[in-house]
């Protein structure tokens, strides 16, 4: 009787094959989310450029009501926050949950439905706003007929994430899973409550902006932030091959975020006609956010200590570490901005816009770019076509957002100082900030060039054009020559040209 003794290489092969089969099970739905997310990133970039140019060149595209600033700016927000960021976030949730639970994705067809529903909603939101159907409620500008589609789409994704988690084969719940589970639990409820109370059974008076800003801040804090931070908690150690610096701190950070982030929304209404205690409680919550932010910062940055040279080698790591640094910076800044004395200057100025973009782009988008560069080759079985284009994307995005943030922070600060001085004529303030706004458009053009490079790489990869790369870090290629035929058919997308196990 033959006895099968598994060698070390066999164990490695089994592990690699299992991981590849999980990636393969996610391929269709996750790529659908990724592709449509990228489409909305490009739409959002175009709308952003139009809105930005209009601020320093007010006669740009004035002939059409569709392209007025009030519509284009709101459509931009929906395209990038609900379109790009949320679709990419849902792709992250699905892929990471499968990998970390070590199970394949089941019933993928329903996730195509979820993706379609979310995209219908985003189309109705962006199209509706451009055609004059926007609601004028910031962040919730989408027409009411788009709202049920958003809820149904994210509801399905949440259900699939929960079902995948229940079927998990890995007994330990990794910190990224905590963040993802929390996000898919919080967001559908958050969105439903906010839309119900503002549009379907509207509350009146100051309660309406209170709910509005409770939603807006939590959209970032309880939806995009946990998924972005969770993604970095997976990618950084996984790319480096080094466990997270302090796992204990990472869990503490998660629970501190769960406890404090939802308080923070009212700091947007400082100085507004709301009860003073509401704004003060928010300021306290914002200050308490130092705890989870410092926990995440220590972990992300201490894990990198001694490994910074790796940034030269890994495209995913560059984007992810940039995002992690931006998270630390934007969170510290956000806590300081919640102080009333600071708000006296910066409130209602471009300073806030710079802060928002450091969060939504410098942190969230950069981490999702890092995720794409890591995840897509593993889903398609094909390496990126050009390192040069990846570098172009990184430098355009990194320099673009840095320029954007710097110019708007300087312009916004002095704008606030001058607005508080009754001796400064309003027209002088406009004239002072105009060159900074022009620089903002240049930053926007840079970021858009990066997005076009990114889109080219993505399309070439998905379509299977260009040179095939069989030797790369990301691909698992089945060594058919050495193993039985059933092995070769179990993972059909893998190319059998060569044996590739990591050295």
């Amino acid at each position, binding site marked *: 009787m033959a006895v099968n003794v598994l060698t*070390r290489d066999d*164990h*490695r*092969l089994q*592990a*690699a094959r299992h*991981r590849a089969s999980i990636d393969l099970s996610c391929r269709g739905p996750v790529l659908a989310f990724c592709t449509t997310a990228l489409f909305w990133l490009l739409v959002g970039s175009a709308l952003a450029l139009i809105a930005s140019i209009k601020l320093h060149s007010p006669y740009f595209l004035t002939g059409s009501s569709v392209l007025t600033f009030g519509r284009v700016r709101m459509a931009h927000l929906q395209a990038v926050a609900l379109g790009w960021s949320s679709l990419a976030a849902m792709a992250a949730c699905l892929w990471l949950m499968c990998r*970390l639970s070590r199970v394949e994705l089941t019933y993928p067809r329903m996730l195509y439905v979820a993706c379609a529903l979310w995209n219908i909603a985003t189309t109705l939101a962006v199209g509706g706003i451009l055609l004059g159907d926007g609601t004028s409620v910031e962040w919730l500008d989408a027409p009411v007929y788009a709202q049920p589609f958003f809820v149904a789409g994210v509801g399905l994704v949440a259900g699939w994430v929960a079902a995948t988690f229940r079927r998990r084969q*890995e007994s*330990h*719940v*990794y*910190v990224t899973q905590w963040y993802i589970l929390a996000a898919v*639990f*919080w967001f559908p*409820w958050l969105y439903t*409550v906010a839309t119900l*109370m503002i549009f379907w*059974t*509207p*509350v*009146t008076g100051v*309660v309406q902006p209170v709910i509005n800003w409770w939603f807006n801040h939590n959209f970032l804090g309880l939806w995009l932030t946990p998924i972005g931070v969770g993604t970095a908690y*997976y990618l950084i*150690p*996984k*790319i*480096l*091959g*080094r*466990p*997270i610096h302090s*796992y*204990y701190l990472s*869990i503490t950070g998660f*629970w501190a975020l*769960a*406890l404090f982030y*939802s308080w923070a929304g009212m700091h947007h209404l400082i100085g507004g006609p709301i009860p003073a205690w509401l704004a003060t409680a928010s300021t306290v919550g914002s200050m308490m956010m130092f705890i989870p932010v410092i926990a995440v910062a220590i972990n992300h940055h201490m894990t990198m200590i*001694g490994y910074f*040279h*790796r940034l030269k*080698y*890994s*495209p*995913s*790591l560059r984007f992810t570490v940039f995002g992690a640094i931006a998270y630390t910076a934007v969170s510290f800044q956000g806590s300081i901005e919640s102080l009333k004395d600071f708000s006296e200057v910066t409130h209602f100025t471009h300073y806030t816009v710079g802060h928002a973009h450091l969060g939504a782009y410098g942190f969230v988008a950069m981490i999702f770019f890092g995720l794409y560069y*890591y995840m897509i*080759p593993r889903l398609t079985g094909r*390496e*990126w*076509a050009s*390192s040069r284009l*990846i570098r172009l994307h990184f430098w355009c995005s990194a320099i673009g957002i840095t320029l954007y943030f710097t110019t708007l922070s300087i312009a916004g600060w002095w704008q606030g100082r001058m607005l508080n001085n009754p001796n400064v004529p309003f027209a002088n303030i406009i004239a002072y900030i105009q060159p900074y706004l022009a620089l903002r458009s240049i930053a926007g053009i840079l970021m858009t060039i990066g997005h076009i490079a990114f889109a080219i790489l993505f399309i070439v990869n998905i379509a299977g054009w260009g040179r095939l*790369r069989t030797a*790369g*870090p*990301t691909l698992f290629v089945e060594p058919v020559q050495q193993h039985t035929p059933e092995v070769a058919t179990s993972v059909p997308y893998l190319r059998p040209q060569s044996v590739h*196990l*990591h050295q």
Partner: protein
Amino acid sequence: MDPVDVAVLLTVFGSVLTFGGAAVWALNWAVQNGQFENFQRGALSIFDVDEPVGQATDYFPGEAPPPAAS
């Protein structure tokens, strides 16, 4: 109280109970389940024999992999 006030109060208290309750339940489950007992093992759960600790898993396509960690 008009119906809108009732709806607001129900939503607020419902949210407090749902979210507070969920957080307490999840924390309790995690403690009972031993999730917080061995943090070192938790940190290692993303690695396996094919992609072990010490193995870099990403570098630019067509270029040399990074040298071993210092």
